[in-house]
């Protein structure tokens, strides 16, 4: 279990310091795959480097299992080479003067392990590089270098595996493949893992839980489904996936549902508990909005049905993106191309209440 409490870290720049991480807390359970997700400059890599011991935090406590890696309270600091961790770098960091075997063996050699050959071979087999151990590291393709980096990180039994945007240098096909392999490998080994990325899809596929970060703070923590379907913060809704956000006021709230009055009319939403928010933004994802040219074709015509005009559409292959205008409000809708497509701009659409989420504006503006 990895436990981070009140972590602060700032960089020294000309004329002062810039805080990169501004007091974050989170816990990664044993065996969990945990992702720090956020735009560049949000402090996710710095957080990772603090855990690795490559940065020196200003304040906070970092615990890995029973061991205190860092604590500003009693000045504890375990240097990077004494922490029981493995890391896969963005640049792969494969040592060009060594063979594949030497690269993978290095951590085991440093830690004076026995049966090093067996360990290296097992690691190489796990990443699918058996037979390449005598290759020079520079003769490998990007994907193979990535695999060597992973093998090197898992060759000894580490308490924590860390990934710093490991897939960002691969081309898109290979990225998808490695993403799936990485997930399988982690589940097979069951090592506690912490992963840093700015790619929300990567985060969704890989993670057990995701911490969304912004400006050095954690905005929200949750399982991929929660983050995507029921985000609690406006920033999460905007950063993860595409979103329609409509200004609205709660007109009435019951135990598990509420009515929101908006510019396009009253919208009924389902809530998990009594809605506390009075005023805010209503979120609905473009792919969750059914649309039809005849009102009767909609799956539910009792409530939340609106009429609008298509102002633009773009064909992306798999899907069609429509922009619908209702009064002065624009709504994005994403649909598969289907037979009912007509050239008539006048359409009807429906907001499923369970897909609508009410978000507060103020809450997210503390940052």
């Amino acid at each position, binding site marked *: 279990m990895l436990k981070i409490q009140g972590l602060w870290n700032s960089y*020294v720049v000309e004329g002062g310091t810039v805080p990169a991480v501004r007091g974050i807390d989170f816990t990664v359970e044993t065996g969990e795959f945990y992702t720090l997700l956020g735009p560049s400059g949000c402090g996710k890599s710095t957080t990772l480097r603090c855990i690795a011991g490559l940065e020196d935090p200003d304040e906070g406590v970092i615990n890995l299992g029973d061991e205190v890696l860092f604590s500003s309270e009693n000045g504890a600091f375990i240097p990077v080479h004494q922490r029981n961790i493995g890391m896969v770098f963005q640049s792969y*960091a494969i040592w060009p003067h060594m063979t594949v075997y030497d690269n993978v063996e290095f951590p085991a050699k440093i830690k004076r392990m026995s049966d090093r050959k067996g360990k290296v071979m097992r690691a190489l087999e796990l990443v699918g590089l058996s037979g390449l151990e005598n290759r020079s590291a520079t003769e490998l393709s990007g994907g193979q270098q990535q695999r060597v980096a992973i093998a090197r990180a898992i060759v000894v039994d580490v308490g924590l595996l860390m990934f710093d945007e490991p897939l960002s240098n691969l081309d898109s096909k290979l990225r998808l493949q490695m993403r799936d392999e990485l997930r399988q490998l982690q589940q097979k080994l069951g090592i506690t893992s912490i992963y840093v990325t700015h790619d929300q899809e990567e985060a969704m596929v890989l993670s057990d839980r995701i911490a969304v970060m912004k400006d050095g703070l954690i905005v929200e923590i949750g399982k991929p489904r929660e983050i995507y379907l029921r985000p609690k913060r406006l920033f999460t809704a905007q950063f993860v996936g595409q979103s329609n956000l409509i200004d609205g006021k709660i007109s009435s709230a019951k135990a598990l549902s509420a009515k929101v009055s908006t510019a396009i009319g009253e919208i009924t939403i389902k809530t998990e508990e009594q809605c506390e928010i009075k005023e805010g933004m209503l979120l609905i994802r473009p792919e969750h909005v059914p649309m039809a040219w005849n009102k009767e074709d909609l799956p539910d015509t009792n409530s939340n049905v609106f009429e609008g005009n298509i102002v633009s559409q773009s064909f992306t292959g798999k899907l069609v993106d429509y922009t619908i205008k209702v009064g002065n409000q624009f709504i994005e809708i994403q649909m598969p191309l289907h037979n009912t497509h007509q050239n008539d701009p006048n359409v009807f659409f429906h907001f499923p209440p369970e897909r609508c989420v009410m978000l507060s504006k103020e809450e997210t503006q503390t940052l």
Partner: protein
Amino acid sequence: MCDALKRRDTNPLKFFGQINWPFTNIKVRESHILVVVILALLVYLVFFPLALIIISGFVFDEGFTVRHYVDIYSDARTYSLITNTLVFATSSTFMAVTLGVIFAWLTERTNIPFKTAVRISLIIPLAVPGILLSIGWVLLASPRIGVLNSFLVGLLGGTAPFDIFTMEGMIFVQGLSFTPTAFLIVAPSFRRMDPLLEEAAGTSGANMFETLRYIVLPLLLPSILASGAAIFLISLVVFDIPGTLGMPSRIFVFASEIVDAAQEMEQLPAYGRIGALSSVFLFFTFSLAIFYNYMTRRAGKYTTITGKGYRPKLIDLRNWKYVALAFVIFYVALALILPFLTILWTSFLPYLQPLSFRALQNLSFDGYVETLTLPRVQLALWNTLIVVVVTSTTVAVLSTIISWLIVHSHRYVSRCLDFLAFLPLAIPHLMLALALIYFYLTIRIIPVYGTVWILVIAFITTFIAFGTRTTNAAMFQLHSELEEAAWISGAPLLRTFKEIVVPLIFPAMLNVAIWVAALSMRELSAALMLRSSESLVVSTIIWEFWAEDSVPSHAAVLGVVTILILLVFTGIGLYLYDRTLTVRSPKKKRSNIISPVSGLKSP
């Protein structure tokens, strides 16, 4: 969360460099101890001598005075000395840079035949030290014994057409000697200039002339100016050639004046005058060094943008390419072949004789046997070996450590290290030698005065600037994650240094070692100032045989030996020079790096 924000936006401790980790961004105590040790060493090696020179200019009878400066200002001789030095330095720099740029353009951007051979033969003249080049030219063009003169007089009659013991002669020989250095500094930027930049100008509607004027020249100007500044800096204080060619006819420049003054003085007070004079020149060399550093950075910015392997578009010289080739051969003949052959000829003769059939019968190896069995020659050879080996290894290792610290230290510490390591570039060898004498005569606890070790100290100090320029470039190419991956793997600092850093930048270290070995073998001025009967090295003993004892055949024998050894060094150096140009980094498989010649090849 909000409370935390209000409590503190920045950590005030960090601004003062973090209490726990004051010097480097590596969280290991050893690295901080290392910084302190290296900083202290650099202050000791570089800063103390420099301060001493400047202070000595203000001291008389142990009191503060400006009388030395007044003396210098009121002495008419000072002004003729400055004029001489400036004329000499400007003209020889101009000649060397012009030739260097022409040669760089020919080898990098035209279809001159035998390109590789041409490139190598333009660098090989580095193997001829200034003193031997001028000895060669005395044998060629002295009015009395010059081979060229007697040949032309025999052919045309009249008086000797050349006199090498003149300002023109000095400038000519110095220009020849500096050309390879200029070539080495300028050529990489010609090579690395992306032809796309020129093509883009073409598609924007610029003709060839406009492309040259607005694109090519501005891009190359920083490196041309850098080579100019570097060579001008050296030529202001160079001793070998003005010493050999100017002193016999009493034409003095700054360096020969100081050697002359130092040889005459018996007691310390004369240091005051020299110190004051030196401080004036230090001001110039210092400004030039800063200008040079600035320009190399600009040049690096302009030319290292892409790491793609591209082939520059070559200009077809058509039949002119043979003229170009002839021009290169002519230069190599003047800078290497002719002087070397005359020295070789002299080394086989018991006394100076012009080229003739009669002299052919006198050729023998007797001179070699006689010279090389002299005890003081053997001492000099032994001393040279010590100096070369100790200096080159120390500089290679020290430069690597300094560069590593520069990369890993906090901003201000890093700048401080870099500045101290760069500073020796601005300190002329002569002044450094003077400062060391002054220093070790005062502080006798360290008994190096008069021994060969004072030479080693002087050379390490001087060449650390060249060494760190090269290792810096290699170290900055090393992706930081390569080291971090080793730490994460559990390797402590030293182990990482040994297993990851050193193997990866070893070509650069070897490169430094070879060039420093060659440079310390060529070095004359500091060695001459620090000379004692005990601390003779090959370069000083050549000077003694030639200028003081007038046994030219001994000097020629040692000259031949020196040139042959330096040829080997230069050959290895050239091979490694090409290897260090590409350091493998994990991101890009091969990437161009900043020129290793950002340091100076020829003091």
